[in-house]
């Protein structure tokens, strides 16, 4: 056990002693997050004002109102089937608020037949959206302003700035980057010959292997702590999911990407080619897997490609957990996909690892 921890810490120390690597792997990713966070600001909602509408009237009149609202330059109508759904959408910052049309609603109805659901603590600029909404409803037939009764909910609405969008994705990307490099660390240990020297001590191959990976995992934790600190204290980003769920996701992502990194390193003939092979994975994944923009906003072929890559699933799971506080049970697909990658890479990596460590003799 002593050997295990000494070796794990040695791997961590070595990483920290290499300022260039630290700079490249940590600083770069923090820098990207900060840069995008500052530059992109809050632009997302300024172009679209999505509103959830629960139409209980279901008359031609109500349909006409909905069509009219949706036809507006800024408003986007999203039909929902319950008030609970409206609240959820507000909490997830998918809509600025919701309208409930009572069963007997008509264009001339009194305000008590139309209800606006909104968050108590909403941003000031959302009021502009409600004013626009109100003007449209009034213009449709009602004479009174405001044309509705308001029900104000106390919701912890997720923030929806660009930084809030990329923050969970960046966490996933950091896990990918550090874990993929684990294979290179093992390869390097073989190439300089220290692996062979270690094998001549009474320490087992499994201990060497697992402590190198544990050391790399400590680096993952370090990266995540720095990123979370910058996002939370620097930008006021929120983490809504439970820490347990997050920890489990971090572990799952670590397993999947370490297995991938090792499998690639085992297949690569040399240290240099391994670095190149890994870039072939990490570079496209950084751009294609939904870290910086939504996967479904890409052209179909790219979307298919991204659905085949493991980072997409880790990003999705992280975004759901960090941003919306979704429980892990909501991420069954993502978890299965990551497990599948883990098992496949493990099968490939483990087989070659045996051959490989024998060669290192």
């Amino acid at each position: 056990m002593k050997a295990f921890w000494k070796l794990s810490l040695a791997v961590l120390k070595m990483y920290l002693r290499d300022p260039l690597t630290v700079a490249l792997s940590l600083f770069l990713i923090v820098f990207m997050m900060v840069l995008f966070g500052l530059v992109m600001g809050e632009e997302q909602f300024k172009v679209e004002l999505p509103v959830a509408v629960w139409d209980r009237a279901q008359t031609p009149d109500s349909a006409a109102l909905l069509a009219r609202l949706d036809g507006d330059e800024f408003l986007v109508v999203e039909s929902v089937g319950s008030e609970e759904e409206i609240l959820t959408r507000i909490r997830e910052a998918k809509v600025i608020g919701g309208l409930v049309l009572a069963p007997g609603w008509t264009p001339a109805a009194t305000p008590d037949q139309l209800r606006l659901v909104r968050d108590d603590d909403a941003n000031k600029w959302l009021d502009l959206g409600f004013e626009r909404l109100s003007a449209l409803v009034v213009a449709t037939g009602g004479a009174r302003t405001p044309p509705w009764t308001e029900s104000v909910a106390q919701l912890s609405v997720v923030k929806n700035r660009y930084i809030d969008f990329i923050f969970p994705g960046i966490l996933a990307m950091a896990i990918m980057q550090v874990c993929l490099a684990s294979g290179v660390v093992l390869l390097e240990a073989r190439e300089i010959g220290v692996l062979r020297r270690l094998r001549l001590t009474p320490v087992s191959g499994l201990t060497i292997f697992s402590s190198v990976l544990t050391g790399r995992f400590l680096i993952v934790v370090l990266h995540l702590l720095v990123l979370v600190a910058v996002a939370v204290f620097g930008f006021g980003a929120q983490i809504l999911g439970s820490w347990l769920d997050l920890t489990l996701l971090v572990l799952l992502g670590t397993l999947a990407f370490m297995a991938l990194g090792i499998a690639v390193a085992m297949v690569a003939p040399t240290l240099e080619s391994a670095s190149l092979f890994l870039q072939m994975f990490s570079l496209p994944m950084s751009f294609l897997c939904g870290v910086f923009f939504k996967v479904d906003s890409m052209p179909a072929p790219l979307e298919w490609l991204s659905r085949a890559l493991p980072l997409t699933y880790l990003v999705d799971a992280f975004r759901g957990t960090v941003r919306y506080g979704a429980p892990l049970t909501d991420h069954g697909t993502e978890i299965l996909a990551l497990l599948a990658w883990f098992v496949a890479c493990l099968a490939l990596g483990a087989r070659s690892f045996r051959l490989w460590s024998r060669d290192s003799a």
Partner: protein
Amino acid sequence: MINAPASPRGETVLEIRHLVKTYGSHRAVDDVSLTVQAGEIFGLLGPNGAGKTTTLEIVEGLRQADSGSVRVFGLDPAQHLDAIRARLGVSLQKSRYWGQLTVEETLDLFRSFYPKTLPVAELVELFDLHEKLRAPMKSLSGGQYQRVVLALALVNDPDLVLLDEPTIGLDPQARRRLWDVIRRLRARGKTVILTTHYMDEAHALSDRVAILHRGRVVELGSPNELIRAKNPHVSVRFTTLQPFELAGLAAEPWCLDARAADEGGFQVIVPSLREGLGALIGWAERQGIGLDELETRAATLEDVFLTYAGASERAPVTIAEPAGSAS
């Protein structure tokens, strides 16, 4: 602080019997038998590909023998690997350590692998590492690095130390310094098995050497025994002030061989220094030839070694070459 040797002097530490290892159709080790006694420095010599590395790898438990037996401390490496490795110290020629770790951290790391260890302070003392303790491994000079490598081979206070080319690439001063350290290991009762391509080193350090050639032990004994058995003659190189007839010199009864030396001048082989040198000087006086730049040289371990290197790499060398032409 270093304990008395666990294996009393004279006890067999390593016993190899009829060891065979083939790679495909190539017999890397072909019926090798050796014993190494406690407290001796044993030189394992041979040209590249002679089977030294494979033999050591089987001893270290990194490879399995095809047939034959190996016993380290009386134990079979195939079965008692951990027990053997706990008492084994190794320095590998091609192994580098992690350059980012300091000397102290590396020593500390390797100490954590063993149940029984020497204190860092003692290793530092033994290998004179005081000044470099906090330095990253990658910042060390060749000599410093090799001293750390030896210190790492000793962290577990081993009974048997395997040193693979411990002084390769070092300047002469650093080599001498390392020789002193290796001799100190013997003085502390360690058994040392040394592989080297430097024959002066093998001669200076080894109590006994084995020369491996094409997977077989072709010579085994103390360096001096091997030299005497192989080539007891002395070579004398000289230049003359006047020209003379080489055939006349070669016809002298004490002259075993006479030829123009590669480096200029002449070289004769005489049976012994006492007999041959006097005869040569007498001959020169009788001929009225003035001798200049006279240089004598007895055969060395290198000459013995080159007999085998020559068999595979160049024409046989039966006559000692002047020192300095060694490759």
